[in-house]
């Protein structure tokens, strides 16, 4: 708990110095290429506290961060935080759905592969997931997009809903799901591998244990042994992995969102890089880090709750 708070403080300090090192003149770059009187610039510098010593600036930065005031975007000239809040739902929907789907399908795949180890099922599941695991996720997205949206025309090429259709309610929801299909498929395929490999090796470890032999000796059916004795114990690392991956829900789809023009935090990041829109990047980095730190804490807590053996350590 204390560790998580400390890590977050580290992130804040790091963030401050990293962007202070490069960005020697934030006000100048804010009005880059525009004719603004020198006096206005000076006034703004004072208003942003940039004439103060570094220590005072840091305190100022801490206060502003605590109030979620991360400055003005260079690109849209809107408050950074407003842009971010507007983009959160799209990302949470897309990556959340993909994270759940990949965890469920990946775990089932891992169980099948381990239980039928060294059969054709195991080999095809393991090598299949390794192939998806080895390709850049956004490239998989590009291939799926060209195949299913451009060539076959089954799905839209991007965006979150059909523009100007004026749909609402259920119709809008269906339209959005239709738009989400390809990016969600991409992310699910890209995340699957990790779950399959972790589940498989964890279950293989458990399968060597004596208590399973005892369960079989009692005459229990194979399915019962698998589902009630082996799998629950093997799932512990998978639970941790799932919790940790949920921390990456906000930052997990940067390049894939860019490919599908999905208007979430990932696309915001990709656009901010092109600027470069430094206040936006700074705030996004802070948000992404905070999400991961919080979910790591949750993972730790669930783990000791699920597995009492951890308590003593």
């Amino acid at each position, binding site marked *: 708990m204390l560790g998580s708070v400390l890590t977050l403080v580290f992130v804040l300090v790091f963030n401050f110095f990293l962007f202070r090192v490069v960005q020697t003149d934030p006000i100048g770059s804010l009005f880059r290429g525009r004719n603004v009187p020198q006096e206005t610039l000076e006034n703004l510098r004072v208003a942003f506290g940039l004439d103060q010593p570094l220590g005072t600036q840091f305190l100022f930065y801490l206060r502003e961060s605590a109030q979620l005031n991360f400055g003005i975007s260079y690109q849209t000239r809107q408050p950074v935080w407003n842009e971010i809040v507007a983009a959160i739902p799209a990302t949470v929907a897309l990556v959340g759905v993909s994270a759940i789907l990949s965890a469920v399908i990946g775990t089932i795949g891992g169980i099948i592969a381990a239980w039928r180890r060294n059969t054709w099922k195991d080999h095809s599941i393991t090598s299949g997931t390794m192939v998806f695991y*080895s390709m*850049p996720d956004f490239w998989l997205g590009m291939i799926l997009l*060209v195949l299913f949206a451009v060539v076959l025309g089954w799905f839209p090429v991007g965006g979150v809903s059909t523009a100007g259709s004026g749909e609402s309610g259920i119709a809008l929801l269906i339209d959005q799901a239709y738009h989400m299909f390809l990016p969600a498929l991409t992310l699910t395929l890209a995340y699957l591998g990790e779950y399959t490999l972790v589940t498989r090796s964890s279950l293989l470890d458990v399968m060597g244990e004596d208590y399973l032999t005892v369960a079989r000796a009692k005459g229990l059916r194979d399915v019962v042994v698998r589902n009630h004795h082996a799998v629950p114990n093997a799932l512990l690392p998978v639970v941790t992995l799932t919790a940790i991956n949920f921390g990456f829900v906000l930052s997990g789809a940067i390049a894939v969102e860019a490919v599908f023009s999905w208007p979430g935090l990932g696309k915001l990041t990709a656009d901010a890089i092109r600027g470069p829109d430094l206040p936006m990047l700074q705030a996004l980095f802070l948000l992404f*880090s905070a*999400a*991961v730190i919080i979910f790591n804490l949750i993972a730790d807590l669930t783990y000791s709750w699920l597995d009492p053996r951890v308590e003593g350590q």
Partner: protein
Amino acid sequence: MTSLAMQRRRATAGRVWKQFRISRSGMIGLGVLLLFVLMALAAPLLADARELNPVFARAQGNPQWAPPSEFGPLGTDYIRRSVWAQFVWGSRVSLFVGLAATVLTILIGSVIGIISGFVGGKPDAVLMRITEWFLVVPFLPLAIVLASVLGRNVWNIIFVIGITSWPSTARLIRAQVLTVKQRLFVDRARSLGANGRHIVSQHILPNVMGLILANATLAVPISILTETTLAFLGLGDPSAASWGKTLEEAFVNGAMVRNAWWYFVPAGLGILAVVLAFTLIGRTLEEIANPRLSRGR
């Protein structure tokens, strides 16, 4: 003593190779990797580097967006450049950045892991605190902010990947050093008057080398994929076009809407093949170094 140690080490290498040779997936990985290394080395023989220059391509009278059937072997892009030349020369950049970043990763990770594990005490606590921080902070966003701040060139990209991906290596090596440290021959060397430096270089290092090597092989895929993603997001070196850079240019210039598959399929397949090759080799080495891990069973 040196010659004896050398002999023993050569014998170990021979044994590892013997075990490696019987692993089918390991050998497939090695074969694929050799093929790409050969291609990268022989790039000047396979494709004229001038084909990468749009001015030259125009003067040559290359067609624009030509599919492979019209301009062999892989067609041309939006500014008439040969995609084959980009593929061949891109392999050099991708492999170089991947390998160099891995060397940096392993270097930082090993130094921190060995110091932490061997010295122990306060330095260990401080180093592990830092390691934990780097482990927790999301890797790609960290790489993105660092790369945005530092600027777009190959060396910065290598630095960024190295500085963001060493922590897992450091942890692994530290754990291994801690177990090696308990072994009898370390006590023996110490009681014979060996100093810390001697113990680390002669006893600890040789015993964690296998793990370092296996870990390095598994770190290359991460380095290559990170470089690809950074390049795709526009953080790649404009003067050294990697496969990731090719994918970015294809995407930005509308290759997908045109269905110009020849522009972006080869580079992605190249990445896939190299990453898969390193993964297969790394897993095989890992199984040899640590038989308990054996995944096939």
